[in-house]
């Protein structure tokens, strides 16, 4: 759920085009003329309108009611939702915005999922915590335009001036007479009207909102989910469909050299064994090859796969070993690195410091383990392809399927199912490409590719392993005067270009070079680390290791100085101001792809969430022995989040988390109820990361395979009382990300609490048994 790779690829292709002139660049790269549909500031008549990075995304934004809204004669309003639903609630919240602005009655609204088509619908990459951030304004405009069209249709019907009509709660009223026409009655006439010009639209005054900002609307799929009717990609059934499972190379870039196709074919129900060719790196999202077994049901395919007995040639990554790699990363972090941001003179300040404190932090690989393992069904026949898949990137998937098959995008239909979790894994459409390859091989028979949990855990795009080395210098007054931070982590860019062997600017902007700390001598460096597996973005991405190191280090310094960790954190942040590192970074400050002017780094907001979380948690109150509170804060995805985690550690070293207080400032909040659910979920995922998350490699292979050895949090293991405190913000405060920003502060707040409770400082994740030793 994160970074915009397709956009980056375009940027790489168009590097000679001025980066500032993003629109032009996109038009020249892909002819995406719809980019003209973005809203430059002032495009429509609303004083609160602001710019976002939406226009720089493939497809930009679209707000035309003719695309998103249709009304049946009985008044049923159908709203198209173009972002993928993976649990954040965007499939409810964005249509709710349209419905509110158009004065529709939510009880009469139906939601329809758009297929992948970014020319028609605008950008569909559901990652980077962007759905609300980039689409609340276009969807408001869409609703306002629909309302204007309905009003116009009524005015024409009554042959009265436009000023005499007003849309209200699913009908248009003739104000002087009080007579009215329902939306269903006006639908046909309204649909024939042209889309109003953007600068004629009047948005509702926020005081008139029925649904926006209220959190009272139940999620769209609630009934289906609770009755087992909700359809995910694993659940797709197409007439005549076959089922496939694939034996994939256990080591990235490995190849199958020998297998027993006959034995697999002997399993009743198996219909075909198909070899899938490997793809060299950088493979983007292309399947890495393997041997597929296609059968009449999943069970037969699984039995057939067991019978294959594949022998692999492991290739260049066979030496990947997590223990050794950790040591190599540590070595790299002990040497001067490439300077990524530089302020003052760190070397001189450290040399002159009264005291130098240095610590190292390690976070291993992680994996998304979405509850629904990846799955896709494809039918490739007569030069056309149709896909049903749980993809976060419907538009990108369409392009990739078209590219794979060598057919125009117009001949590819990507139907988006519900996603049983995404977290960034399902931004990569390898599983949909596999299904297309196999259906083509079968001459057009639909094929469903089922990933098992073991497939999922062993053939993922892993959250990057990382090693952070932080050195701080204190002066005679115990002020932090120097901060040198070396970050070592293989880059996800290795999927898209020759391995850069260090974090790219895009990863550095996730909590490293955008640090707001008020330290006069500051140097942020990267060290070399080679990607030996596929690295992928995982909910909040490099914010996790960066926040863990920085926010732990601040608490370590506070402890060293005997200071209150919250007060010391506020001192590190410094006074309320705009921090602008754009001139001190050596490449580029990636501001999540959004304009700096709309979303600067505002330490006033950062301080405010720290203070709010502390106050709500009762920071400083006396706790029983064995209990403690920890605090951490992070600006990520343009949102400010602080968490206070309370822990209780028993004499055997078992940690529970009786309470979490999280304050979030995400600008204007469209759906507080879903924001709370994201924060609760982020705490659970954060606690999983802190306690368990650990993908390790040995001989190039992932050592884990299922939930027995890749543990995730279960009920009752903590974070059962998570309280979300949303900072109030008016419609004029730009909405920012929500899906990811709850994760980064959790682990450091948790370990700071563990320290407060036990005096033990944990710097190597996961926690595992470190407290019981």
């Amino acid at each position, binding site marked *: 759920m994160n970074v915009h790779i397709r956009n980056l690829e375009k940027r790489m292709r168009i590097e000679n085009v001025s980066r500032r002139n993003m629109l032009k660049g996109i038009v020249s790269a892909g002819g995406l003329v719809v980019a003209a549909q973005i809203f430059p500031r002032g495009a429509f008549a609303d004083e609160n309108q602001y710019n976002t990075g939406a226009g720089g995304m493939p497809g930009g934004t679209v707000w035309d009611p003719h695309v998103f809204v249709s009304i049946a004669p009985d008044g049923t309003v159908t709203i198209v939702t173009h972002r993928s639903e993976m649990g954040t*609630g965007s499939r409810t919240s964005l249509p709710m915005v349209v419905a509110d602005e158009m004065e529709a009655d939510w009880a009469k609204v139906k939601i329809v999922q758009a297929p992948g088509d970014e020319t028609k619908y605008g950008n569909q990459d559901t990652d980077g915590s962007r759905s609300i951030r980039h689409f609340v304004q276009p969807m408001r405009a869409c609703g306002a335009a629909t309302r204007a069209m309905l009003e116009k249709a009524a005015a024409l019907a009554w042959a009265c001036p436009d000023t005499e009509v007003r849309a209200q709660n699913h009908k248009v009223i003739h104000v002087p007479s009080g007579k009215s026409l329902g939306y269903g009655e006006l639908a046909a006439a309204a649909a024939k009207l042209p889309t109003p010009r953007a600068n004629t639209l009047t948005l509702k005054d926020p005081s008139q909102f029925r649904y926006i900002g209220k959190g009272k609307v139940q999620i769209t799929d609630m*009934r289906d989910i*609770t009755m087992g009717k909700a359809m995910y990609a694993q659940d797709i059934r197409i007439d005549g469909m076959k089922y496939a499972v694939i034996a994939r190379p256990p080591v990235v870039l490995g190849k199958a050299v020998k297998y027993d196709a006959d034995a697999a074919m002997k399993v009743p129900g198996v219909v075909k064994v198909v070899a899938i060719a490997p793809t060299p790196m950088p493979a983007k999202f292309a399947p890495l090859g393997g041997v597929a077994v296609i059968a009449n049901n999943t069970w037969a395919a699984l039995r057939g796969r067991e019978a294959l007995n594949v022998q692999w040639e492991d290739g260049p990554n066979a030496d990947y070993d997590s223990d050794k790699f950790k040591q190599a990363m540590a070595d790299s972090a002990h040497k001067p690195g490439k300077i990524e941001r530089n302020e003052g003179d760190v070397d001189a300040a450290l040399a002159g410091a009264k005291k130098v404190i240095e610590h190292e932090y390690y976070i291993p690989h992680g994996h998304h383990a979405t*509850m*629904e393992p990846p799955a896709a069904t494809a039918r490739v026949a007569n030069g056309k392809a149709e896909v049903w898949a749980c993809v976060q990137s419907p538009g990108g998937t369409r392009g990739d399927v078209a590219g794979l098959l060598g057919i125009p995008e117009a001949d590819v239909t990507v139907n988006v199912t519900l996603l049983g979790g995404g977290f960034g894994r399902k931004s990569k459409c390898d599983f949909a490409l596999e299904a297309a390859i196999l259906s083509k091989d079968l001459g057009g028979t639909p094929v469903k590719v089922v990933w098992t*949990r073991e497939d999922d855990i062993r053939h993922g795009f892993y959250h990057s392993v990382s090693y952070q080395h932080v050195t701080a210098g204190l002066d005679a007054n115990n002020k932090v005067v120097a901060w040198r931070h070396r970050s070592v982590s293989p880059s996800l860019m290795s999927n898209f270009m020759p391995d850069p062997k260090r974090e790219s600017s895009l990863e550095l902007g996730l909590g490293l070079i955008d640090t707001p700390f008020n330290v006069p001598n500051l140097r942020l460096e990267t060290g070399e680390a080679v990607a030996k597996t596929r690295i992928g973005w995982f909910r909040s991405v490099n914010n996790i290791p960066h926040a863990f190191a920085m926010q732990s280090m601040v608490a370590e310094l506070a402890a060293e100085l005997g200071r209150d960790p919250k007060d010391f954190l506020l001192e590190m942040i410094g006074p309320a101001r705009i921090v602008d590192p754009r001139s001190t970074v050596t490449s580029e400050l990636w501001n999540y792809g959004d304009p700096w002017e709309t979303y600067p780094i505002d330490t006033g907001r950062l301080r405010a969430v720290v203070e709010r979380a502390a106050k709500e948690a009762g920071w400083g109150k006396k706790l029983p022995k064995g209990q403690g509170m920890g605090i951490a804060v992070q600006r990520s995805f343009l949102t400010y989040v602080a968490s206070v985690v309370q822990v209780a550690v028993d004499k055997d070293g078992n940690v529970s988390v009786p309470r979490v207080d999280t304050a979030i400032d995400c600008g204007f909040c469209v759906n507080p109820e879903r924001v709370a*659910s994201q924060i*609760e979920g982020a705490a659970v995922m954060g606690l999983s990361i802190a306690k368990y998350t650990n993908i390790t490699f040995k001989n190039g292979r992932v050592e884990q395979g299922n*939930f027995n050895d890749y543990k995730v949090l279960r009920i009752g293991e903590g974070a059962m009382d998570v309280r979300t405190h949303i900072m109030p913000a008016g419609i004029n405060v730009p909405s920012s990300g929500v899906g990811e920003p709850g994760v980064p502060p959790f682990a450091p707040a948790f370990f700071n609490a563990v320290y407060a409770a036990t005096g033990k400082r944990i710097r190597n994740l996961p926690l595992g048994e470190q407290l019981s030793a």
Partner: protein
Amino acid sequence: MEVKVNKQSRTFNGDPQMPLMWFLRDELGLTGTKFGCGVGLCGACTVHVDGKAVRACAVGMNEVAGKSVTTIEGLSADGNHPVQKAWRAENVPQCGYCQPGQIMQGAALLLENKKPSDEQILAAMSGNICRCGCYQRIFTAIKAAAKEVA
């Protein structure tokens, strides 16, 4: 062999080792029983066999011959089992994928124990993973449903 699924008699002639989950999903199209891990570790495939919660991925067809299986689709005719209602009232789901299994597990608990303690709820639900992290709402919803059935 015969097995009753949601009160309807069904015949199965395939591999007796085939897990019930694949029979329900692939043969009967009852996809409310979800595939999460395949080895009894996540609870996504939870159904009732003769009224008890069972992981459908971990029992073979030979083990359910002659028995009565209830899936999420058969839990209640109108979808208004007290657990389902509580799920809606508490806005439990995020992605929703684990939820049929959670609901079936919660419903089985309340069949067995109308007044479960907090510890009993946590113990009963500990085999059901929710990667989205809806646990605090799951817990609240089961308590609410327990109040209704009590």
